[in-house]
């Protein structure tokens, strides 16, 4: 078992309260930063740690922070992206639900580094009960003086607020999130300008994922260099993985980056193997938008090396034979799963969630869903596979925000690795959902 830095205390009774959280060392990063460091030193530690954005893109956090414009007399904001909506991902929910103070502590320490007097946590509307947990934790933090005026007697004052969304995947894209926070439709903005220059209400803004902000606490506590020793290569530190699908033990696992994928799937410390003694068929390793990989490519790279849970190893081979770490939404499918039907659920999702601004995405996602529906009806013809490929290739790279790519990549990967399944349905004019028996079985049991 590797090191745990974020959810090592998740089973401690009462860890959601300030009192217990403090007993287990909570808020020490705020003490250390505010009393012994300058904001730039905090940023430097984050840079040294090699921390990369945990929301999916994997951009170096310290670098993102250093882009923040700091004009005189203009407010700066930190916004936490808690709009976790990528299918297969539920790690932020777990972290906020179990240890809400870990996020609030990270918000304070990070805001100090950025010079932000106000921060907002934008949480998806469906996580209403989680927002409630955060509200209670915020109230505790205010009452104890961790938030508000002159924190710890220093001249740093900070206010943190929660805003709930209302059900829109697109608001996880940072500029759409800012639009939504301003009370508008979640339409992504054209970049540049980037939020670091013109973000919330036109002010310089940093938008970071929940897990990224929570990871700032152990980084400040242990120092950036120590943090960078954990993990492998440029994939430093630990990562929360949301494991779901046909595995024996679904749930959220904190892993040290660099753990072999095979160990993650089969070890009793993690997913504990495939349910009902079935064989592994495919894995979506980083949330619905990353390419699906068949067993042989998820366990080993094309070169035959063991595939590791790291940014570099998972993307080894590009999209031809690799995938991405993404948000860490790890969906496992057994041998009875229909890749076509699973792809249909993804494409329906992206069609539903497209904001409608750019025609390639708005029209393309709906068109792909219709074609996939034909496969499920048994009315698809062989050339529909080509058509699907053609449509996805015309969405990728032609939209304002990455939702276009997110919708196109799963389609491309399913065809790349499982083309025969599509062709068989087209040839037999029939779709039989063989995974049905398996699923029903689980429910009755």
């Amino acid at each position, binding site marked *: 078992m590797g090191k745990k830095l974020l959810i090592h205390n998740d089973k401690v009774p009462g860890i959601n309260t300030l009192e217990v959280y403090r007993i287990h060392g909570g808020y020490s990063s705020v003490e250390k930063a505010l009393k012994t460091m300058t904001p730039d030193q905090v940023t430097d530690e984050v840079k040294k740690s090699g921390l990369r954005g945990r929301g999916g893109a994997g951009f170096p956090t310290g670098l993102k922070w250093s882009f923040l414009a700091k004009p005189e007399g203009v407010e700066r904001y930190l916004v936490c992206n808690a709009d976790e909506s990528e299918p297969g991902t539920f790690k932020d929910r777990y972290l906020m639900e179990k240890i809400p103070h870990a996020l609030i502590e990270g918000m304070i320490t990070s805001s100090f580094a950025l010079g932000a007097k106000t921060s907002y946590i934008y949480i998806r509307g469906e996580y209403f009960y989680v927002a409630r947990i955060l509200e209670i934790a915020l109230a505790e933090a205010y009452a104890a003086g961790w938030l508000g005026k002159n924190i710890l007697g220093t001249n740093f004052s900070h206010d943190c607020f929660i805003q709930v969304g209302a059900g829109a995947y697109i608001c996880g894209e940072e500029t759409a999130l800012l639009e939504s926070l301003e009370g508008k439709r979640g339409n992504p903005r054209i970049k540049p300008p980037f939020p670091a220059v013109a973000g919330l209400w036109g002010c310089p803004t940093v938008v970071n994922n929940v897990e990224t902000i929570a990871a700032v606490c152990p980084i400040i506590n242990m120092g950036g260099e120590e943090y960078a020793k954990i993990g492998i290569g440029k994939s430093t530190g630990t990562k929360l993985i949301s494991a779901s699908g046909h595995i024996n033990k679904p749930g959220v696992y904190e892993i040290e980056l660099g753990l072999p994928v095979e160990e993650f799937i089969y070890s009793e410390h993690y997913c504990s193997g495939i349910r009902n003694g079935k064989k592994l068929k495919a894995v979506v390793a980083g949330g*619905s938008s990353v390419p699906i990989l068949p067993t042989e490519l998820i366990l080993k790279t094309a070169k035959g090396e063991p595939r590791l849970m790291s940014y570099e190893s998972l993307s080894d081979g590009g999209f031809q034979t690799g995938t991405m770490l993404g948000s860490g939404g790890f969906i496992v499918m057994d041998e009875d799963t229909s890749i076509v039907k699973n792809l249909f659920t993804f494409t329906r999702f992206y069609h539903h969630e497209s904001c409608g601004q750019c025609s390639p995405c708005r029209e393309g996602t709906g068109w792909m869903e219709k074609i996939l529906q034909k496969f499920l009806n048994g009315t698809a013809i062989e050339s529909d596979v080509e058509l699907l490929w053609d449509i996805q290739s015309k969405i990728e790279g032609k939209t304002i925000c990455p939702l276009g790519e997110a919708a196109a990549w799963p389609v491309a990967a399913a065809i790349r690795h499982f083309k025969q399944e599509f062709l068989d349905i087209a040839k037999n004019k029939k779709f039989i959902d063989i995974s049905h028996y398996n699923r029903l079985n689980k429910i009755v049991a």
Partner: protein
Amino acid sequence: MSNQIHGAQHFDKSKRLEIKFSEDVMQIAQSIISRYPQGKQKSALLPILHLAQAEFGGWLSPETMDYVASILKIKSIEVFEVASFYSMFNLKPMGKCILEICQTSSCWLNGAEDIVKYIEKKLNIKVGETTEDGMFSIKVVECLGSCGTSPMLQCGASYHENLTFAKVDTLIENYKSESKRKSYTDLDYKNTL
């Protein structure tokens, strides 16, 4: 704004509620508005729409949206364009309990379709419909971040996870026995916003 846009033709005028926040709800609304800088009160639109939806019958009628616009000093169209964008806002009346069943990948892998069929049969309505007594509506929704505890459904602010047919039976019975509650969309909303 025409009634047709909002689907308000389904709305029974005789049952119309007075569209005005009570004093304590108004206080909550004001405290939400105070979270944003002067002049940026429009930012409070999403939370206040949640509040209004919970207060005024579980959906956003044209009157409700006009009222929210007046509180935030913005145009009605600015409210409507937002209300129509986000899937949690209902633009037509719904049942008291909206059973929102997740249907995306992990939930599908674990039998969400069977759960949908089972509930449809049990309540004798289809997805998108409401029972005659106005008690239950069935909706299918996209990923709610409960993939490791699938299949699941959401009702109001509550998550019901690791569903089995037996669990569905129990939760529907429970909601029926609590049917006096005004609306299940308001569970905990007021205390949180």
